[in-house]
C-alpha cells in the first residue's frame, strides 16, 4: 500500500491535478454566474465543445494561441446571447433550451470542423500552450512546481476565484446579479433591468465556458477531437451544486473532483489495481453523483433559478 501511495502522490500528481482543474474551474465559475442570475445554462457541454473547435481552428490558421482564446470566448458569449434570447426574452423552459443549445453547438462544432479540415489522415494539430514558470515563485519547493510552473491560463484560473468572489459580493453589479437571481421583482422595483443583467451573466458565463473548452484543445491537448469534452460540462453543473453556488466552495468542489480524476489517471497508468480502465473512466461520474446525493437535500439554489421573468406577471 505504501508503495502505491508513494508512486501516486508526487509533485507531478498535484501539478496534474491543477491542470485537470483549470478548464473545469473556468466552466464551473461560468455556470455559477449564469445560475446566480437565475438561469440554468445547460448549454455548457455544447459551448465548451464548440469553443474548443473555434479556438483551435483560429489558432491553427492565425498561429496565435491568444487569438484562439479570444475566438473561444466570443463563441461562448454569442452562444450565451442565444440562450438569453430563448430563456430571458422568450421565457422558455431553461432545461429544454439548454439541451437544444448543447445539441446545436455540438452539431456545429462537428459540422464546421469537417467543413474546415475535411477528413485528413492524421488530425491537424497546433503548437499548444507551454508552461510559463513564474520567476522566484516557481523555485519554492513543492508549491513552486505544483502551482507556479503552469500554463498562463492556469494562473488566470487561480485569479478567477477571488475575482469572482469580489465581483459577486463587493460590486454593485454583483449585488444586482444576486438580487436578480433571488428576487427579480425586487430588483425590477429597484430599477435594475432583470433582462440586461441576465444577458450579461449569460454572455460572461459563455465566455468563461469557452476558455474552459479551448484550454482542453489548446493546452491540455494540441488538437480538437470529437470526444474532447466528453461529459466535463455536465460535471461542472454538478460542481456548482456541490459548491452551493459560492465561488470559493465551487472552487473547492472543482479541486476535489480534479483530485479524484488525477488519482484515477495515476492508478490507471500504474496498473497496480487490476480492473478494466473503463472502470476508472467511470469513477469521476459515479463520485459526482454521490457528491450530489450528499449535499442536494440541504442545497439552497438561487430562489429564481429556472423562473422566467415577465414584468406584468407576478
Amino acid at each position, binding site marked *: 500500500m505504501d508503495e502505491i501511495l508513494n508512486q501516486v502522490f508526487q509533485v507531478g500528481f498535484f501539478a496534474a491535478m491543477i491542470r485537470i482543474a483549470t478548464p473545469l474551474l473556468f466552466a464551473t465559475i461560468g455556470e455559477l454566474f449564469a445560475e446566480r442570475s437565475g438561469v440554468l445554462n445547460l448549454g455548457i457541454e455544447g459551448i465548451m465543445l464548440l469553443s474548443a473547435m473555434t479556438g483551435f481552428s483560429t489558432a491553427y490558421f492565425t498561429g496565435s494561441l491568444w487569438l484562439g482564446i479570444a475566438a473561444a470566448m466570443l463563441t461562448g458569449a454569442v452562444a450565451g446571447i442565444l440562450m438569453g434570447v*430563448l430563456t430571458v426574452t422568450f421565457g422558455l423552459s431553461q432545461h429544454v433550451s439548454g439541451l437544444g443549445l448543447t*445539441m*446545436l453547438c455540438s452539431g*456545429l462544432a462537428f*459540422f464546421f470542423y469537417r467543413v474546415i479540415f475535411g477528413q485528413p489522415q492524421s488530425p491537424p494539430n497546433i503548437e499548444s500552450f507551454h508552461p510559463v514558470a513564474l520567476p522566484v515563485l516557481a523555485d519554492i519547493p513543492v508549491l513552486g512546481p505544483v502551482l507556479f510552473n503552469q500554463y498562463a491560463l492556469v494562473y488566470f484560473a487561480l485569479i478567477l476565484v477571488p475575482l469572482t468572489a469580489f465581483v459577486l459580493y463587493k460590486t454593485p453589479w454583483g449585488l444586482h446579479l444576486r438580487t436578480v437571481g433571488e428576487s427579480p421583482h425586487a430588483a425590477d422595483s429597484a430599477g435594475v433591468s432583470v433582462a440586461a443583467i441576465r444577458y450579461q451573466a449569460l454572455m460572461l458565463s459563455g465566455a468563461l465556458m469557452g476558455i474552459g473548452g479551448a484550454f482542453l484543445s489548446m493546452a491540455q491537448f494540441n488538437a480538437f477531437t470529437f470526444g474532447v469534452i466528453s*461529459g466535463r460540462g455536465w460535471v461542472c453543473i454538478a460542481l456548482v451544486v456541490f459548491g452551493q453556488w459560492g465561488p470559493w466552495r465551487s472552487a473547492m468542489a472543482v479541486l476535489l473532483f480534479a483530485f479524484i480524476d488525477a488519482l484515477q489517471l495515476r492508478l490507471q497508468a500504474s496498473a497496480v489495481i487490476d480492473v*478494466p480502465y473503463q472502470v476508472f473512466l467511470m469513477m469521476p461520474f459515479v463520485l459526482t*453523483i454521490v457528491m450530489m446525493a450528499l449535499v442536494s437535500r440541504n442545497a439552497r439554489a438561487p430562489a429564481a433559478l429556472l423562473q422566467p421573468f415577465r414584468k406584468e406577471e407576478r
Partner: protein
Amino acid sequence: MIKLRLEQREKTSAWLNLALPIAAVLATLVLCGGLIKIAGANVLEAYAVLFSSALDSKFNIVETIVKAAPLVLTGLAVAVAFRAKFWNIGAEGQFLIGAMGAVFIGTQEGLPAWSLVPLMIATGMLAGGLWAALPAFLKTRYKVDDVVTTLLLNFIVFYGMMALLDGPWKDPLSGYPDSPDIRMDAEFPILLQATRLHLGVLLAVLAALLVWWLMRFTTLGFAIRAVGENPRAAAYAGHNITKVIMLTALISGGLAGLAGVGEAAGLHFQVMAGISTNYGYTGIVIAMLARLNPLGIVPAALFFSIIITGAEAMSRSTGVPVFLADVIQGTALMTMLIALLFTSYRIRVSTARHG
C-alpha cells in the same frame, strides 16, 4: 414607436397543433440551408438528395421505418417523463442497458427457444426501467437534480458497456469490442420477407398506442400529468408524488430499454460500441416536436429517421458533412420551442406615439 409584446391566449386553436411543428421544421430547414451553402453545395440539390434518398425505393422506405422504431420508443420515453417534469435525459443510457439485457438473455444456451423473445423484452425493459428509477429515487429522496444525474448515468453505463465488451464479452477471434451474437432463435422475427422490418417496429407502434391510451384514459396517466403541471396541487388532490415519479421513471426507462432490445435483437444481434447513434438525445427533439403527444411521436420519429439516413446519402453525393443532421436536430428543438410560445401567447403589435 411600434412595440411587440406577448399576450396570453385563452385557447389554442386546433390547427395550430399541426401548423406549429411544420413551421418549426420549415424554419429549421431554411436556417440550416445557410450551412449547406457555407459547405459549398447547392441548397435545394442537397435537400433533394436528403429527402428523396430515404424514400426513393421500397428498400430505402423500409430502412427508414426500421430506423424510426428506436426513435419512436426513445421519443415516447422522453415524452412520458417530461409530462411529469421528470427530466429524463438518460434515455441514451437506458437504451444501452436495455440492449445489454437483451443480449445477456439472448446468449444463454440453457433457455428454451420459445421463452427467448419474451424474456429478452422483459429483461431489457426492466433493466432500462430500473436504470431510470435510480435518478428518480435520488430526486424524490435526496432532491438530487435529475437532469445532471440522468446525463451522468449515460456516461457510466457507456463505460460499463465498454468494459464488458473489452472483457467478458470480447470476441476472442476478432478482438473487436463486439459482444457475442445472440442465438439464432432469439432473433426478432422478420415481418416482411427479404427486408429488415422486424418485430421491434411493430412493438414501437404498439407502444405509441399504449402510451397514448395510458396518458389519456387511465388514472396513472392523469396523475402523471397532474404531478407535472402542479406538484403541490397534485399532492393536495391525494396523489403520492414519489410513487407517481417512480412509476413514470419505470415506464420511461422501460420504453427506452425496449428501444435497445429492438436494435440488439432485431437488427445487430449483438451489442457493440456504436449501437446507439444518440437515439436517446434525438428522442428529446422528437418528443418536443410532437408536443409530448404519443401519437405525434410516430410522424416526428419518421421525419428524423429520414433526416438521419438521408444525411448520409447527401454527404456522399454533395460533400456536405453528415453532421448537418445533428445541427438540424438542435435547431429544430429551438425553433419548436419558440413556436410553442404561440400556443399560449400571441404577439400583439401596438403603436405608441412619443409625447
